[in-house]
């Protein structure tokens, strides 16, 4: 089974703080990590490979330092990795990103499954997966919590807003995953990291991918950011430290005033 997993390097948003005076992001000292949903995608790909044989390729689009997330994926057990890195890719919105990744997946050759995280924690768009699937002309399943392979078909557990669905799809397909609550991200030990060093990790530029240069990066992006700014900050709230009965009185006052009672 040939699987391609797509990963993104993201700032650890849990560590991003806001400068209280200027209202801007403090990025200093914020570590870059593999997008958590993507790590699950990689580990799921490796699990499927271990069960059914085959090969896991991992791709990422980003600046040169994004190599770190690919090395980590290799250390977790992926077989090869490709970094798509070129100034020409900068400013890509989801459509241009999907275009670029899809070209790379096609260049890697035949595949049975593309796995990616549903969304990245720095953008939260969840658009790149479906946009890639459309470009690759393959079916997609999003919000997936698990994938198994039976009788030449993928059986996917999908979280819906009202429960769960078990879906079936024939390869090739794209599955965008969310992390199930019992998922504990794997941490490769030293020997696996050293082994990863020996695995192929290539960098491809726009020229390597071919395709239409007008569709990469900012040029290929139908959406433009007009303005980036800090959200208006809410005023400091009222803090109650009185005994429970006093607090309860005040809360009822507020709930009544706002029409909740």
């Amino acid at each position, binding site marked *: 089974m040939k699987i391609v997993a797509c990963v993104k390097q993201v700032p650890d948003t*849990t560590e*991003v703080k806001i400068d209280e005076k*200027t209202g*801007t*992001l403090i*990025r200093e000292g914020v570590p870059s990590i593999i997008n958590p*949903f993507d790590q699950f995608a990689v580990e799921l790909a490796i699990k499927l490979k271990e069960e059914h044989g085959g090969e896991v390729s991992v791709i990422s689009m980003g*600046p040169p330092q994004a190599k770190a997330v690919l090395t980590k994926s290799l250390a977790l057990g992926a077989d090869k990795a490709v970094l798509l890195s070129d100034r020409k890719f*900068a*400013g890509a919105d*989801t*459509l241009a990103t*999907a275009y670029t990744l899809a070209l790379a997946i096609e260049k890697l050759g035949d595949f049975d499954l593309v796995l990616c995280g549903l969304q990245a924690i*720095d*953008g*939260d*768009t*969840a*658009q790149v*997966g479906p946009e890639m*699937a459309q470009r690759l002309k393959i079916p997609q*399943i*999003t*919000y997936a919590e698990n994938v198994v392979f039976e009788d030449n078909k993928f*059986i996917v557990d999908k*979280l*819906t*807003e*009202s*429960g*769960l*669905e*078990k*879906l*079936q799809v024939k390869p090739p*397909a794209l599955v965008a995953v969310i992390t199930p*609550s019992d998922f504990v991200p794997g941490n490769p030990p030293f020997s696996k990291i050293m082994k990863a060093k020996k695995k192929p990790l290539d960098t491809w530029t726009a020229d390597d991918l071919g395709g239409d240069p007008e569709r990469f990066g900012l040029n290929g992006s*139908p*959406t*433009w*950011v*007009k*303005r*980036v*700014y*800090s*959200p208006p900050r*809410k005023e400091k*709230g*009222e*803090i*109650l430290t009185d005994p*429970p009965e006093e607090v*309860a009185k005040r*809360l*009822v006052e*507020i709930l009544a005033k*706002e029409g*909740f*009672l």
Partner: protein
Amino acid sequence: MIEVDAEKCSGCKKCVKVCPYGAVTMADKLAVIGDECNLCGACEQNCPEGAITIQRKKVEIDESKFKDVWVVAEIAENKLKNVTLELLGKGRELADELGQTLCAVLIGKDVKSYTKVLGEYGADKIYLAENDLLEFYNTDSYNMIISGMILQFNPNIVLFGATHVGRDLAPRIASNLELGLTADCTGLSIDEGRLLQTRPAFGGNVMADILSHTRPQMATVRPNVMKKLESPTDKVPEIVEVSVNVDPRGMRTKVLERTEISGVGAVKIDEADVIIAGGRGLGSKENLKLLQDLADELGGVLGASRVIVDEQWLPKSQQIGQSGITVSPKLYIGAGISGAIQHLVGMKSSDTIIVINKDPNAPIFEVAKIGVVGDLTQVIPALIEAIKAHKAAQ
């Protein structure tokens, strides 16, 4: 690409401060843009000297070819989803400002009856596609039908709810038709005739205003953010029936099993007006009962931080936050939740936030309208009593 005019740059470092990607550094008192740059434009907009420019290609759009504001309707459990009505509310505003028609797109099996409500909540016109094979959402068939409608009728704006379905479908259509799409908008407005789409990024720490230079302009919009019409009209919308051929072979994913969660999950957490959420500070599963009692008094549903779901005290459908569901109810009461950023991202746009926590330094106090420093096992029973007393007095 992006350029810094060395003549104009004064070395003021404003760009360094505003760059959300940490891509700008100073060398010899000149701004230098690094590889991390994502061309977001924050530096360009904030440079007091106008020294930074991003070259964007010129795009000509024949605006006259694209008319009308569309809302893609979503039905769940024999009811139009709230977000659809909210989008109609917003869509009404946008359509009026543009002097265009507000249309709803309604797809399904025997769904004509919903046209009435769509009209009442603002739709002038409804594009209706019915087929027995469309009973349940399927990415392939819905993509094909809506993409076809868009090509046929050339709308100016198409809005989807940022629901599981909307977020599966909208990008598929965007890619099919090579259109721009903005995810999870919390604000929409008209800016010089264009749709200005506002969305949070970086876990809600920054906001971005986004424009599309393709038509239609497409966006998914967060539930519970827009307001539906306060007083529904008795307007009868025009119905345009679109005939569709659905080939089951084109529906490449097949549902084998569907499990609905009842009980706790019966009211969708992202549709609830009142949410009572619990976290690690509950201490024991028994204390969930307190929250349930409070929820019963206020007509709310239970929500949870991740740890409660991990402990399997509540199902995943109730998990609020980055790896769960984003909610913005009218009232959110959080008890024993410290407010890890993953949780805050999922609830901080709620209207009224009341939190109860022992630790006065818990980050959740930062977003609270009312913060109670205290023991939830004492505060909540007292609150329930006070509510009962208040109700009895009325």
